[in-house]
């Protein structure tokens, strides 16, 4: 479905796209406060509201990155201040694990940022968003969907070649020479 929707806007040069998961009690409210206080900041972050940072499933982060986000921002209450006692700790623990995983996948650690922002810290929302946009602008696009497309293309090409070989074998013709590498262990 994603490919069928195109907003009627002029296509400019690449700008970071960031998905944010903010907890309802602290960071979402802080973002509201930034709004009420008219603290101008970069327009690259799209906020999704959850009740608690503890609700942030690592799959949400992976989904966002694979769907084309260049970074993910998670905002929760400060330690000790969680509206639900300790959801933010749970989030922190998961985040640590996820970061290791993402590092293995070659995704820069800066692309997933966890911040504790209280309801009073509108200024911090502004600062963190601006900082993150700057960092990601420097890192450049993550481009996982494009990579997927590339891999898909390679895969189908490979499949095509394989089936072509198979056809050749089946047809009794000389097989196409396929270069094989000998790997010495």
């Amino acid at each position, binding site marked *: 479905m994603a490919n069928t929707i195109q907003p009627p806007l*002029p296509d400019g040069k690449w700008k970071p796209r960031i998905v944010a998961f903010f907890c309802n*009690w602290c960071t979402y409210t802080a973002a*509201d406060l930034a709004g009420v206080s008219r603290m101008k900041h970069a327009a690259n972050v799209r906020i999704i509201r*959850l009740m*608690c940072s503890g609700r942030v499933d690592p799959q949400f982060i992976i989904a966002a990155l694979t769907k084309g986000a260049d970074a993910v921002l998670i905002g929760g209450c400060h330690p000790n201040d969680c*509206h639900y006692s300790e959801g933010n700790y749970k989030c922190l623990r998961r985040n640590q694990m996820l970061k290791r995983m993402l590092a293995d996948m070659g995704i820069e650690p800066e692309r997933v940022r966890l911040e504790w922002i209280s309801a009073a810290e509108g200024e911090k929302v502004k600062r963190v968003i601006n900082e993150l946009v700057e960092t990601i602008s420097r890192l450049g696009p993550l481009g996982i969907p494009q990579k997927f497309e590339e891999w898909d293309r390679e895969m189908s090409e490979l499949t095509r070649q394989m089936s072509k070989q198979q056809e050749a074998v089946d047809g009794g013709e000389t097989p196409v020479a396929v270069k094989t590498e000998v790997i010495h262990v």
Partner: protein
Amino acid sequence: MKPIVPKKHEPIRIGFYICHCGTNIAGMVDVEAVAKYIGTLPNVAVSRHYKYMCSDPGQELIQQDIRETHLNRIVVAACSPQLHEHTFRMATAAGGLNPYHFQMVNVREHDSWVHTDRVEATRKAMALARAAVMRVPHHKPLEVKKVAINPNVLIVGGGIGGIHAALTLANAGKMVYLVEKEPTIGGHMAKFDKTFPTLDCAMCVLSPKMAAVGSHPNIHLWTYSEVAKVDGYVGNFKVSVRRKERYILEDLCTGCQECVNACVFKEPKFQDEFNLGLGKRKPIYLPFPQAIPPVTLIDPEVCLNFKRGRNPDGSHTVSDKCKKTCVEACGDRKAIDFKQQEEIKEITVGTIIMATGFQIFDAKRTPYYGYGIYPNVYNALEIERLINASGPTEGELVMRNGQSPKKVAIVHCVGSRDENTNRWCSRVCCLYSLKLAHLIKEHTEAEVYNFYIDMRTPGKSMEEFYNRVAEEGMHLIRGRVADVYPDPNDGTTGRLVVQAEDTLTNKILKIPVDMVVLSVGLEPHPEAENLRRMFNLSCSSEGWFLERHPKLAPVNTFTDGIFLAGCCQGPKDIPDTVAQAGAAAAEALALIDKGHIEQEPNTAYILAEECSGCKSCIPLCPYTAIAFDETKKKAIINEALCKGCGTCVASCPSGSIVQNLFEDAEIFSEIDGVLAD
């Protein structure tokens, strides 16, 4: 509550509405373009933009569309859901749909108000709206949960704010627990001499209210007590209160003070807290004559009956060194109990009012004003006590050297409007400084110099008061004092020079004075941070308790059922504190009289057929809402205990926990939606 399964094969028909909010949104977001674009998306049946969606015609528009074009999902892009989500859910319901078939998009606080590029802001609005449009088909009809409310109220802090709120609620027939950490209620107001602008006597207006609290049948007054623990939620808070040992049995003491007279210490010799150390008291004492409750207490640090040591459990060790003349004097009343121990009281209340007040700025933090260095430098509260007829000098304004000052400098804005200490204006200092100027002149006929930055006298009768004091012949100098130092031309009398630029004449003034009064500002109570944690509140960056909305919810907090009164929320004067205390009481009453609380149906439930019985969710729940059914080997969620954080949902390895309003499918669609451009 089990979700109602939506009718299968019902085609989704979404109504999308974007609000101009005057120019608040339309000024930065091309709302017409957003509406046009959303109209092209699948499932969208109606897409409109309208000037004010929250207005009656705006809401009527939604209802009409539901009726006429058979919409079954509604998305409104407007302000923050914190403000109007409820409004539009009600409009959705009024149109005949389940109110949870609605989703709100925040394009004001998170978009038009914080961005400066119209193209970017419009693009973002489209993305956010698209996410909601992609999310809302997954919405299920849900029901609001109702929970009964406990009618009792806890009020924390017994200053004028707490007193007024307590009386209001008690008079309305509600049971109030008033917890105060000092041995008496009264707070700062009890220490003031006169109040501005009317110059009426603070204690004269306060003491009847204090007495009413003390005798009210609906008020449990617990002084010398502190809240130790808070659990639970609106309607049903469980609170532990620590009642500290005062070594006097409150119920038996009549307040006759014969024990005080009989104490082996013939003269008071210990620093008197109520008079800020300017007066003296005995080890057994009543904080001040009108104290409520009129019950004495014993200071174990100085009383001879205590060895001034502590037992392993922290209680004071008792000695037999003293003749115990106090016990003798008390006689058959037997109100003195040296073995008394602190007590923990458990109470259940439905609502809480915080009225914990403020502390005055410690002027030692601005060392160049010489507080704590030169004996003739005082803070304003000390002056209140010195000019008070029941104060340590019985109302005679004399300095520590016994002399009456002939020239007095009053320094405004000490610990206010200062990046190095406190940034905010403390709001009351200008007026109390003028009041003190008037009172000092009245008491001593001294020359009084007021050094101010800006004279701030808003409020009813305040400017008139300023005029009156100015006419009395005060020196009003516009300039912040830069230095206070001993007069180099005067060796011994302790006279000080106050140095400042008179900014209206461009002259540097060096005025020798006998006494310097520092108009110290108001700052958050030192316990505010602990209380905030305990009660799950937020504080502003300055440390004041944060109100839910600065304009429209000034006494509410982000925690339902907890309200704010007085200076714990920010500096204010007595009338404003009383007004806010009344408002907090009314908010509490409104909740209590409704009888029940409506809870968001965002609780979680388990799809039993998919649960593998791994138990990993069970320890994660802070409310012990998840149990394990040993027979079926499945987890079960008690929805009455679930508060809807969703932590268990995120951690379930088999994806068998679902959170209403925040289902995986809903959030994944939202992620797809924000990124689909």
